[in-house]
């Protein structure tokens, strides 16, 4: 009796326990602390790619050319398919190297002559958009360039299918914009300002953006592609103007996501003990973070799969390197009222600066302010005798003429962040540079790329690496200051924008990589923001007032209206212009540098 009662009690306990725990498959309750999973794997971005198929015997000649074009788009992934479109002789001579030509989507295909027979010629006509160079630079074509056409000669083979015998343009791949959008990603690489070389004399910690278009490789994650490209060094536009801590011959073994950190595994002749570690950290940190790869996670650098230093790992934490490697984007704004430089407060006009620059006068125009606002430079009016004048912003400062010359011969002065003053002497076709530290007068700077050009403006970028010039009224070119501090020169000039039927009124650097261009057409004005790396351009909303000059820093953009009718500021949130200083002889908004 007793044992059976005990059995019943045990059964009851078991049933209650099962009902309490077992029957609820997923228990309810909480809150519990959650283990952070690290936010997935941002190392590889999703992408789609063209799959090239070999030509079918039943295809019409136009389809064969379309297929060839698809095979060109897939060439980097599947190089074998492209040659199936070519006759054996053409396959032998075909060289798909060199720059890639990007044309607009849906090019036109026309028969030149008969559309049937043993030999057919098809003409492809399309709008050229850009060129992707071998160094991954994306060079947009100006709108002025007309359509390009390429003739494909096709022959019929024994089976009745068509094959491409020759391509009129010769070598080079031809991709549509869709092909590029599918396979390429604009990428920012970060290099150290200052000339490359073993001296590693990086006076100031500063990174420079190099914008390239990288092809997504299916076999490796995109972060690895980016780091590999970073190790290859800067593109042509910055060649000689920037440096990298990575010596030649470095390669990346892998970049992988490891829980809460990104592990970059390098290989090559790098000496961990004799290395500018902060430079390496900065280059990797901003390159991986600003391309959405590290996303603020800790980065660990390894060498051949082992800790970077023989005993310790090299770790770049998210809160490391808070210093301003990209330059400050916060700086007070100024404007000129009746010749006097006044600060621009948030709502109302501010006070005049100290010293002679703050005094009203009619002698100086197109003022520029040095880094930190310590010096002001201006172009002297004919009343002042022309030339470039400079004064310290201090009670005891006074105007001094640093550069001689007529007003119309000298472009408005531009400060370099190292304290030198730059201008272009149109009378002598030469770039002038004044270094107050050297105590010498203005010295000529070689600029072979500007020889014989009508340079109307010269602006040194805030990172001190790039230089933007306007040529005539229709063209902006961007170059770089190469050659280092000792004997600087300007080089690597490339056309950024060419306008037709329009006039470039002013240019201003927003930061290291974006240039604002004020364009005036016959009855409208626009401010275009252009990435100097790849020419990507955005047009800001226009205002009904006519603008004369612009100045920008970071998110802020100021413009002076024509006829000194006030200063406007562009409001990012409202995407519109807001008046900052009303009527009253306000002109020439100024941010330091740029």
């Amino acid at each position: 009796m007793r044992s059976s009662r005990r059995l019943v009690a045990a059964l009851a306990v078991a049933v209650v326990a099962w009902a309490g725990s077992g029957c609820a498959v997923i228990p309810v309750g909480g809150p519990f602390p959650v283990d952070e999973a690290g936010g997935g794997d941002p190392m590889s971005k999703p992408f789609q790619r063209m799959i090239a198929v070999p030509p079918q015997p039943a295809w019409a000649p136009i389809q064969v050319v379309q297929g060839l074009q698809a095979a060109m788009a897939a060439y980097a992934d599947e190089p074998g398919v492209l040659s199936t479109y070519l006759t054996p002789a053409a396959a032998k001579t075909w060289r798909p190297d060199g720059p890639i030509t990007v044309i607009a989507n849906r090019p036109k295909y026309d028969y030149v002559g008969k559309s049937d027979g043993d030999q057919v010629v098809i003409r492809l006509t399309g709008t050229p958009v850009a060129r992707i160079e071998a160094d991954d630079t994306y060079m947009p074509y100006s709108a002025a360039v007309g359509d390009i056409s390429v003739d494909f000669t096709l022959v019929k083979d024994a089976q009745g299918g068509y094959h491409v015998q020759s391509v009129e343009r010769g070598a080079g791949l031809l991709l549509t914009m869709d092909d590029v959008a599918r396979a390429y990603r604009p990428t920012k690489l970060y290099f150290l300002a200052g000339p490359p070389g073993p001296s590693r004399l990086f006076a100031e910690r500063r990174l420079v953006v190099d914008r390239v278009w990288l092809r997504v490789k299916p076999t490796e994650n995109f972060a690895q592609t980016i780091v590999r490209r970073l190790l290859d060094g800067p593109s042509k536009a910055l060649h000689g103007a920037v440096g990298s801590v990575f010596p030649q011959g470095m390669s990346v073994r892998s970049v992988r996501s490891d829980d809460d950190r990104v592990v970059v595994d390098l290989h090559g002749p790098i000496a961990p003990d004799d290395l500018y570690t902060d430079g390496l950290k900065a280059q990797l940190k901003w390159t991986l973070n600003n391309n959405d790869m590290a996303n603020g996670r800790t980065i660990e650098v390894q060498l051949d799969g082992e800790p970077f230093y023989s005993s310790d790992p090299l770790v770049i934490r998210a809160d490391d390197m808070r210093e301003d490697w990209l330059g400050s984007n916060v700086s007070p704004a100024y404007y000129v009222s009746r010749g006097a430089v006044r600060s621009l407060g948030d709502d109302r006009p501010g006070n005049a600066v100290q010293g002679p620059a703050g005094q009203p006068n009619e002698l100086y125009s197109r003022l520029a302010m040095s880094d930190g606002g310590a010096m002001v430079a201006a172009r002297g009016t004919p009343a002042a005798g022309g030339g470039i004048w400079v004064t310290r912003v201090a009670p005891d400062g006074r105007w001094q003429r640093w550069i001689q010359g007529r007003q119309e011969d000298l472009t408005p002065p531009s400060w370099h962040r190292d304290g030198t003053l730059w201008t272009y002497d149109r009378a002598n076709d030469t770039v002038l540079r004044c270094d107050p530290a050297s105590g010498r007068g203005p010295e000529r700077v070689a600029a072979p790329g500007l020889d014989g050009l009508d340079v109307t403006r010269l602006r040194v970028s805030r990172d001190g690496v790039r230089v933007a010039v306007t040529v005539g009224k229709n063209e902006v070119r961007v170059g770089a200051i190469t050659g280092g501090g000792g004997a600087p020169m300007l080089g690597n000039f490339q056309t950024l924008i060419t306008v037709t039927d329009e006039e470039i009124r002013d240019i201003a650097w927003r930061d290291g990589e974006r240039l604002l261009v004020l364009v005036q057409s016959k009855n409208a004005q626009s401010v275009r923001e252009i990435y100097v790396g790849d020419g990507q351009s955005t047009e800001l909303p226009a205002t009904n007032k006519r603008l004369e000059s612009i100045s920008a820093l970071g998110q802020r953009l100021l413009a002076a209206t024509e006829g000194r009718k006030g200063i406007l500021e562009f409001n990012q949130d409202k995407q519109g212009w807001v008046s900052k200083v009303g009527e009253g002889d306000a002109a020439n908004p100024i941010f330091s540098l740029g």
Partner: protein
Amino acid sequence: MPPTTSRSLRRRTLRQILGGVRRRARRAVGAVRRAWRRSLQLQVVTSTLVISVTVVVVLGVFLSDQINKSVIASSQASAASEAFADRVQIAAALSQEPDDQAKPADTGKSAPADPLDAVMNTITGSGENGSKKRYEVLVLNTATPGSSRASGKVSPRDVPLALRQGLERQAKNLRYDKPLRHQALIRFSGETQPRLTLVIGGLIPPDAGASYEVYHFFPLNDEEQMLSNVRLAIVVVGFGLVLLLAAIAYLVARQVVTPVRLARQAAERLAAGKLDERLKVRGEDDLARLATSFNEMAGNLALKIHQLEELSQVQRQFVSDVSHELRTPLTTVRMAADLLYDAREDFEPMAARSAELMQAQLERFESMLADLLEISRYDAGAATLDLDSVDVRDVVLRAIADSEALAERHSTRFELRLPNEPCMAEIDNRRVERILRNLLFNAIEHGEGRDVVVTVGADRDAVAVAVRDHGIGLKAGEETMVFDRFWRADPSRARTIGGTGLGLAISREDATLHGGWLQAWGQAGEGSQFRLTLPRTAGADLKGSPLSLVPPEIEMRRTWRGQMTPVLLPASGDGAGHEEL
């Protein structure tokens, strides 16, 4: 030849090694079998282990199979629905193609011109703000240039051939509503290890032109990982469960076996004569009742044995008393009979014959009475040895001399086989002589006139005398019965030499008193042999006998018949005889 020798040597060595291994294995198996036979606990634990392993394996396989099925089925179902949604999206996008084509080519950075690109951007998440999908997609249209797309690293090479052929067959039969599924290990380009992948292939019916093949590649790594974890968990839990059950069985069996073992030990001690042995009784369960019953049984048994012993004592006393009491009248009767016998010649022949008969039977009666007294002395434990160091050969010769008269009457001859050296032993001369006389009388009586062989043997520890006759022999099983009191091989046969039927019983008691053995061998038609073995030193334990119990000629004949390797048993080695004692 040396090589042959060495080879044979090696072969022999190998054979020896194998033999050694086999022996050892056999020994181990034997030990295990013995342990199994002897231990109830081991049997219970082993049975529990076997049954629980079977149950756990069956349950584990079933469980694992169920989980596998449900996990794979659910992932297949979700994969199929995702693939279906994507196909619908692609089909919808492709059917809009004519409208879009009407628009002029857009050179800005807006949506792609090709609807396939746009829909692929949506599906693969490669557009703006897209997130990575867990699967890859391949859209294949080999008939139209530039109309094939893939996401990630998949390529047409990765599509399993059978799946592709299946879709081609469907396209040929114009069936577009049956997507196919294929699970395969696929090694994608740039990867070193193949991955288990579920590929779902479907067709998008052609609006114009050729149909699109859409393949979805779903990685099954996570499912595989999860299922292998589950399987591992099941194996570990099952293993633990089996161990736990074995431990439980061990404990439970121990609870039952320990009292049983105690009971067995008590029973063994009881059997060994310790009649006071009792079990402890704890509680009221079955085992306690077993202990109670055992104790009752032991008590009753002890009582019965005690009663029997008393009865036996009474009987022995009775025999002894009767023998004593009979002696006095018998002496008187004997004296009277002697007178009659001496005067028998004066009687009529009839009366004279009666006097002779009476004399003979009286002699027999006397000797029987003497034997009875002797045996009752043994039963009372009153027999003692009068030890003396004697040459056994002399004792044998004396006994033969005593028997010679009878032998002559039976025309039997003795054949003596005596060793040359003296066979000294500490014995009671009178008793051993009596034993030998009894054996010789017995041999003469049953020897049917044939020769009686008397053999004396000796070794370091013992001396032995064997008496062999060639008479009718003994039947199987009679070897021990011959030593019983008043036993007769053939009850119908008369005692010709007036044996009392107690001679061999007394002889055996005498031998035992010496610490020796008296054993018999016999075979029908082959005669019989009795062997007396005595230790050289009185009281020393015997380990063997210098003579064989079975006569050597019989042993030889037996081995020859059995076609065995003829090995002569050494005179000292006699295993069978020893174990009988």
